[in-house]
């Protein structure tokens, strides 16, 4: 098998691994910053089918929202640790880097339905005029498993 073929296979493996990880998890850690001061928050996320976008909802009075408004660059971590010693060997974490934007009213229907399918109980929160549906545009995933094994998945736009 030539290298390109091999890479393609590996990428599709990672893709489905990520898909399974995302399906198994409801919450992600979102990292933003305020003038260089890092700041993390737990958010309920949902992923687009092609994994190029991660959706979450935030109130407009939150720090993460203010941070993102002044700098849209962010990171997001999704992992499956279970707070057990075996996590070190068995747990997996995916860190996404990229930038976040607000999904406008007229392109909201599809992502919102994806989001609410995963989090039906957040319907009031999602539909409140005081919150915003956000899109994390993923540039790259850093996938860590078996403690130190790291691969990168660069998303093409």
């Amino acid at each position, binding site marked *: 098998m030539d290298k390109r073929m091999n890479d393609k296979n590996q990428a599709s493996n990672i893709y489905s691994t990520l898909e399974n990880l995302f399906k198994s998890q409801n919450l992600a850690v979102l990292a933003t910053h305020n003038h260089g001061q890092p700041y993390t928050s737990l958010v309920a996320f949902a992923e687009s089918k092609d994994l190029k976008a991660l959706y979450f909802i935030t*109130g407009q*009075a*939150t720090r993460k929202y203010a941070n993102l408004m002044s700098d849209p660059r962010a990171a997001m971590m999704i992992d499956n640790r279970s707070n057990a010693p075996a996590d070190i060997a068995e747990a997996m974490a995916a860190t996404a880097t990229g930038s976040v934007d607000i999904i406008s009213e007229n392109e909201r229907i599809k992502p919102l339905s994806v989001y609410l399918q995963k*989090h*039906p*109980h957040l319907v009031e929160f999602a539909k409140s*005029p*005081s919150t915003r549906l956000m899109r994390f545009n993923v540039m790259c995933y850093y996938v860590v498993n078996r403690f130190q094994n790291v691969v990168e998945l660069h998303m093409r736009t």
Partner: protein
Amino acid sequence: MLIKNLDQITMSDQQTAGGKCLALARLHQNAFPVPKAVCITTDAYDTFISSTGLRTRIQMEISRKDFSQMRWEEIWDAALRIRNFFLKTPMPSTLDDQFRNELAPVFRNSMVAVRSSAPGEDDHGTSFAGLHESFVNISGIDAVIDHVLLVWASLWSDAAMLYRKEIGLDVHQSKMAVLVQEMINSDRSGVIFTRNPANKNESIIEAVHGLNQGLVDGFIEPDRWILDMKNGKVLSHMPAERKNWMIPGPGGAVVKELPAQKSSIPPLDAEGIKAVFEQAMASERLFDYPQDMEWTFKGSSLYVLQSRPISTGIQKPENDDRGWYLSLRRSLENLKKLRIRIEQDLVVRMIREADALAGEHLENLPDQKLAGEIERRIQIFQNWKKIYWDEFIPFAHGMRLFGQYYTDTMRPEDPYEFVRLLETSELQSIERNRHLAELAATVRENPELKHNLKTGKYLDVDSGFIKKAQQFFLRDMETEYSLTGRREVVPEILVSIILEMSEANPQQKSAGKTRMELEGAFLDRFAAEERIHAEELLDLARASYRLRDDDNMFLGRIEREMKRAAETGKKRLGIHIARLDSPETIDAIARSLNDPEYQPDFETPVQETPYRVELQARQMVGQPAGPGLGSGNARVIRNRDDLGGFLHGEVLVCDAIDPNMTLVVPMAAAIVERRGGMLIHGAIIAREYGIPCVTGVPEAIIAIHTGDKLTVDGFLGIVTIEKVHDADA
């Protein structure tokens, strides 16, 4: 299994079929005459709330805030929101198909009752009975499914939650089965207690003409027979007046005048009494426990509607308010009576009392007479406060009754849409604020007047304006503030509010157009008798909404009169107390006037706040009470004197809005209140002006300080302290 008929239910189904279904199944299996029925098991409830995400939503709603810190109105709000979840969540197709396939052939087009059958509901020793909803006179599979949802939702009604909070509200443990039972077109119904709670050797039968719902809900006075428990011999008969009966009609059942030929005859004859007694004793033998049985006659055929163990009178803990909570569930009939009493008697007397008190000259009374007057006024105030709790607050349920009816009919996105139909321009505080706005407008248009007021040159102020302001003050705010010579000048506090108001055009009251549209859409859904019922409910709700504001004001007037007397005493004693807020302080003034030796300690200890600088609240959750998003600097109003500093665009933060605070509401960017609830004064006024409002924030006046920059999310009930006010800056 999601659905079981009465033949399929066995003793092992206690937890999934609930007490009512299990008892009926056993009666049926033992050849008792019971109406055709099926049980929708708790498995169906579980499937519904799990597959739709509702379980988590309910959990989020009830854990929004520590349950023990919630007032009944907040619990009611939470219940209303949960009820709306049930109404707005579509039935998953697997459940819907099964309901249609299995229920429709059993009942076809016959009328049914849809009743709660919660596990534990009818166990002896518990007193759940009557907590959950039951509906009669339902027809068609769509309506049946709708009412199943309503019965499920009643597991989370305020009354049910208040009862269960003692045993812990567990969203995983709380379940509900539903009994769908064919309606018997009955002409006589009633209940029998096989043992008289007051005398174990007797049985009691109560009977009415028509449906027994009238008896159970207490609208129709029943005929009553006391029987010898051993042989069924009638020991005594207490006939009723037999004026009304309950028959099928809009909203399930309606109270109507009893036809003359029926009113002269008791609902049961000797034969009927014998049949009911024998059936009930057979039931007692079957269940091996004294029974409380509901029965009905269709012609000469007797049917058992339900049979449950007589609950054994549970020991009530002291200060248990649960009885009072339950008294808040009132029927239309009951509220209509209450309205007449409030509007035609109580309010009239209250105004007369306040007028009489206001007309009395207190300054020249000798000390002892003044002391007596203060004490008398404390009594009068407390008397009215009690009436307020016992009669006026329960009357607020006119809004709730309408709210439920509206929500059930219109299924709106916003569970509080019904409040918009209640808006009228007759609210007293709105009216008063309009007068104040007129004064502010005069100042706005007259720079010289404004300048003179600002610089305190009252002597140069136009005398017409002074007169108007004084009129306003005397009519609406008399004795609110302890200022000397208040009859000669316009009090500073009022001047500063007027000046601030004159700086910009105050917010306009939200337009009434939408209300008309909503009202039209609502009423057009009904025809004939049902429309009359709907209009009646709306009218009652409006009266209750209006009174919710007005009675507060009237009570406020009486309170002011009590304080006026105390104020007079205070001046005479030459003591300095900033506020006359507690009856104890006021009483101490009366005692000091009576007894010069008496030296009370008027200093009230300053409460330590549990918040220290290291711990700063950032985001606080309360109840969404007025939709909208508002930002501004906080103005914490601890007492009325704080009102004078209120600036346009500030966020009003307070313990509980009292009617006098509503003066500044039109200038506020948002309102945050410690006391919770959708129908409390602050929330009503906020909605009236279209101002974002969050209520029920327990730490509001402790954690928020004047000058803090706040964002108030009235959609979700969130208050964020964006920036803490730096006092040194």
